[in-house]
């Protein structure tokens, strides 16, 4: 379904870029408006990150609901969507996750055409390395689950990995490479562009994107949500969706909820620009290390979370060093690459390492949280499913596993890591 655009928007194309080049870039319009908040909306989405913006977009695009406000306390895309390692993949193996990330990847594959925005989704292939027979078995199960789901996976032996990644340490590695699980459709996308593309798409369909507007309270009357209090005044709404990964516990607390979430910092790193040297996304589970090279030439890589609760959006030295050590151990050819910048995001860590998209006990209030460190690739399907839930009151089939009550019932837990209910271990 396509709906008529409300704002004075423009279509992007190579021809348009050419034309504007000739006229000195004078014809470009604002990518989004800066509207004043209205007194009331049909739907308020708290959180102008990737998931909030995609929720707004799909509410408008799929359900025709455009009287929507996205409230962002900072700037659009300022949270985790703008501070991650940009990896897009569909390589989960537990039911509940499989179908969701599979759906998300399909949405990614049509995203540029859908948004008319180049998010540089690059399906350069993802290779997960394994270093023992046991790990091979676990990855085989994963790969088979991916194919069961209809996605792609290829099991590489050591020589197969060497053909793709000749620069790994095959001679002296502490944990020798046994092989890898290759996911050809895996890859990366330009993270900021995803937020901006969805924001633009939502704005074009009439959604009000309101920045510098912090929600300070959630209004509830008789068990039903009626609106929110913000730093820019009270705004009424029939429905409210909390889509604020990183800050979920704080926002949910405004509605009297206590979530199964702990916030942790995940660091990521980028090196100075280099001529192309790493063509895939490579993941080294043994050392908690993953890397790809951006189109600008920087090596973008990361490791595990810092392991302690944090809202500080910055990490500490030991984890940085561990990540660099893993890089040296896996692919010593990157040794002379210099790390230019490191940053930290706040991760909503859930007890089973999988997210939550569900209704709450308060009518009209929807919850989207718990993305751990896998939120970026989920942006399209998360918004799609959250919009579906808000619009129809029903869980979308691709996200039916993300129920909040699974911890209470023990049914459908999705603990891909198998580390159990300790939030920081996923």
């Amino acid at each position, binding site marked *: 379904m396509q709906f008529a655009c409300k704002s004075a928007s423009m279509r992007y194309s190579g021809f348009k870029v050419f034309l504007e080049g000739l006229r000195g870039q004078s014809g470009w319009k604002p990518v989004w408006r800066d509207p004043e908040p209205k007194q009331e909306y049909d739907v308020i989405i708290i959180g102008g990150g990737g998931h909030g913006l995609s929720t707004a977009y799909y509410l408008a695009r799929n359900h025709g609901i455009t009287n929507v406000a996205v409230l962002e306390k900072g700037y659009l895309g300022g949270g985790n969507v703008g501070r991650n390692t940009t990896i897009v993949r569909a390589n989960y193996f537990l039911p509940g996750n499989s179908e969701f990330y599979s759906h998300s990847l399909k949405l990614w594959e049509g995203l540029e055409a859908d948004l008319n925005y180049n998010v540089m989704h690059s399906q350069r292939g993802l290779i997960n390395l394994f270093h023992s027979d046991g790990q091979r078995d676990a990855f085989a199960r994963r790969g088979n689950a991916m194919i069961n789901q209809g996605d792609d996976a290829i099991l590489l032996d050591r020589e197969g990995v060497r053909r793709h990644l000749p620069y790994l340490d095959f001679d002296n590695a502490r944990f020798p490479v046994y092989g890898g699980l290759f996911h050809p459709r895996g890859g990366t996308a330009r993270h900021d562009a995803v937020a901006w593309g969805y924001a633009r798409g939502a704005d074009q369909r009439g959604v009000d994107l309101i920045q510098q507007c912090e929600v300070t309270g959630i209004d509830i009357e008789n068990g039903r949500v009626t609106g929110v209090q913000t730093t820019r005044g009270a705004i009424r709404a029939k429905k409210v969706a909390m889509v604020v990964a990183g800050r979920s*516990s*704080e926002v949910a607390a405004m509605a009297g909820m*206590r*979530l*199964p979430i702990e916030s942790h910092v995940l660091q990521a790193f980028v090196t100075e620009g280099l001529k192309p040297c790493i063509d895939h996304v490579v993941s080294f589970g043994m050392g908690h290390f993953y890397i790809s090279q951006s189109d600008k030439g920087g090596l973008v890589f990361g490791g595990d979370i810092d392991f302690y609760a*944090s809202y500080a959006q910055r990490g500490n030295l*030991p984890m940085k060093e561990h990540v660099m050590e893993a890089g040296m151990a896996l692919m010593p050819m990157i040794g002379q690459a210099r790390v230019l910048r490191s940053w930290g995001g706040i991760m909503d860590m859930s007890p089973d390492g999988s997210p939550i998209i569900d209704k709450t006990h308060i009518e009209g209030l929807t919850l989207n949280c718990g993305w751990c460190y896998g939120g970026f690739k989920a942006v399209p399907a998360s918004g799609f499913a959250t919009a579906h839930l808000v619009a129809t009151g029903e869980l979308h089939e691709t996200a039916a596993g993300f129920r909040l009550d699974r911890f209470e019932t023990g049914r459908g837990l999705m603990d891909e890591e198998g580390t159990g209910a300790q939030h920081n271990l996923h």
Partner: protein
Amino acid sequence: MRLTCPHCGDRDLREFTYKGDALALLRPDETANPQEWVDYVHNRDNPAGTTSELWYHGPCGSWLVAVRDTTTHVTHRTLSLAEAGK
């Protein structure tokens, strides 16, 4: 970051392992209802601010409670579990 082990004193972060909210010490008794147990294992206050956490100083085997600010990473104080129990 640095933490204070109740046995060894001020030490580098890399000597420690984190477990989670110190409410893990408040284990419900056998008679608690199922909801209390679900809550105990899964749900967290998770404040942006001061919280109490369990850490393990691996080299000496001491567990400790750190009262710490999650926004500034300032540790206000650390306690041995014996002290925390009181």
